[in-house]
């Protein structure tokens, strides 16, 4: 991009033309965005390239052997512990994203259609919990779901159960509940934005043409808000697959996810190439799973019409 721009300057040596180009919208836009772009290039794109490179190398004690190998990927994909972790991580992130989107959609719809003049206040209330004390929020779920925790003591005092239920905490359900809570706002916001963009007269037209409220919702509102639903899925599913804190705090043995294994390769295990291969595999698998979900979603919505 920038290189092409410089080529163009080189082609036109006349100072007047060069001045015209530097004054042009294109040049100013590029100049303006370049600090941020270069920063992201250096601290995001380049590091990811390094990770990909490492995933094809081998660790020899303290040295790195830079001959190309697929050994790390073989290990990542065939060793049962990693395979189980991948499957569980994907399953949890899929469940979390589906549950989050399904439960958040009515809230987004409520704010968009019934928020009145206080839409911004509602959105603010939705986002506040997401930006405050991440660790302690997870910790709080441990307190809620624990053996002597809020949920158990509450249920006992209401007389619904006799003795505490042990199975609330330290399993994948606890992980799912906690993650759904953490990512609620990230699902609500994109859905809300796409609902806001829908011209209300479309829905009135559907009603005018004989649709019930519910049919109008499924045939007009839902398909038109699909872009928001898709980004909500992506913005929840992809990051949650690599969540580290939640499985560690509330997951117990049955709730361990792939991030723990990745972290181990950079800590005591000290096998960077394997850690890199696990990271890359995670990204590829979650991208494929997300793509499949999005395609399935589009297909379903198309069938509704």
């Amino acid at each position: 991009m920038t290189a092409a721009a410089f080529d163009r300057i080189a082609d036109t040596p006349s100072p007047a033309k060069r001045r015209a180009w530097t004054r042009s919208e294109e040049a100013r836009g590029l100049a303006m965005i370049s600090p941020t772009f270069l920063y992201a290039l250096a601290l995001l794109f380049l590091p990811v390239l390094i990770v990909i490179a490492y995933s094809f190398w081998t660790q020899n004690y303290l040295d790195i052997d830079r001959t190309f190998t697929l050994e790390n990927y073989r290990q990542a994909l065939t060793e049962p512990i990693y395979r189980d972790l991948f499957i569980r991580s994907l399953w949890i992130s899929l469940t979390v994203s589906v549950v989050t989107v399904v439960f958040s959609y009515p809230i987004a719809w409520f704010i968009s259609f019934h928020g009145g003049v206080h839409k911004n206040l509602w959105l603010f209330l939705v986002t506040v919990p997401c930006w405050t004390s991440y660790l302690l929020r997870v910790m709080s779920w441990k307190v809620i779901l624990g053996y002597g925790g809020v949920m158990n003591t509450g249920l006992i005092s209401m007389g619904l159960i006799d003795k505490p239920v042990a199975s609330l905490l330290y399993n994948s359900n606890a992980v799912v509940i906690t993650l759904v809570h953490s990512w609620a706002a990230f699902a609500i916001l994109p859905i809300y934005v796409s609902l806001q963009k829908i011209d209300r007269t479309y829905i009135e037209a559907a009603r005018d043409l004989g649709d019930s409220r519910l049919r109008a919702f499924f045939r007009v509102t839902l398909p038109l808000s699909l872009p928001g639903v898709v980004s909500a899925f992506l913005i929840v599913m992809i990051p949650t697959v690599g969540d580290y804190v939640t499985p560690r705090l509330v997951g117990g043995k049955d709730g361990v996810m792939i991030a723990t294994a990745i972290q181990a390769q950079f800590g005591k295990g000290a096998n960077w190439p394997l850690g890199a291969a696990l990271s890359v595999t995670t990204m590829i698998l979650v991208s494929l799973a997300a793509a499949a979900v999005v395609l399935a979603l589009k297909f379903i919505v198309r069938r509704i019409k």
Partner: protein
Amino acid sequence: MSVLTQRLRFIPWLPVYVAVYFLFLYLPILLLPVFSFNNAATTTFPLAGFTTKWYASLAGNSVMMEAAWNSLVVGISVAVLSTVLGICAARAITRYRFRGQRTAAGLIMAPLFLPEIIVAVSLLMIVLAIGIELSLVTVILGQTVFCVPYAMSVLVSGFEGFDRSLEEASYDLGETAIGTFRRVTLPVVAPAIVSSLLVTFTISLDEFILAFFLSGTAPTLPVYIWGQLRFAAKLPGVLALGTIMLVASILMLTLAEILRRRAEKRTQLALMLP
């Protein structure tokens, strides 16, 4: 049967659902202050009475104080850096049209769509590969990557109402480019900028994974808290600390929101859109 279904119809399902959802959203957060004032080392009901001793114990905790200072340094640096970078990107996107715009914006916004641990791991690898010592500086650099997308979304919404005719009017009245930036652009978008500073500071204050991987020997508050969570006895103290951070975060976010809305209102109402 028909009586039951009729009764069910009269329950305002949507408000009930919204109420339950917000309870779910706020319950874990509201529990923190409750237990931080509870006179017991365990976090169970019924409550054992009111105390402020957990807060008092924080004051004498020098390790925690140091972590708090680190968090403050990191938070301010990240807020300034990511807001400056966010201003460049937000202005480029709202003001100019150029080829490669989508690609550039996509890369800048990418951290929103990546597992944080992968961002953390890749940064760790490049930092160690280059041979830079892990320190607060590496935390700042890493968290800035993560915070720029948030800064950008706050700033873009602030800049979008900013019509370029305002700047043109300034040039037209004889002002230079720098003067225009100082006298028109900056004052008009100032609330959005302050809002971005507050939001990114809050995120940095709360961010754990990147700090955990990149902080070396100087912990930030979340890294400190992580270390304390292993000890059940330390939990009430941590909850007290968490409550303070919670209140600080909510105050900053509220202020940020008020400023953002004021900016939006001002730019929107000031222009006559034909």
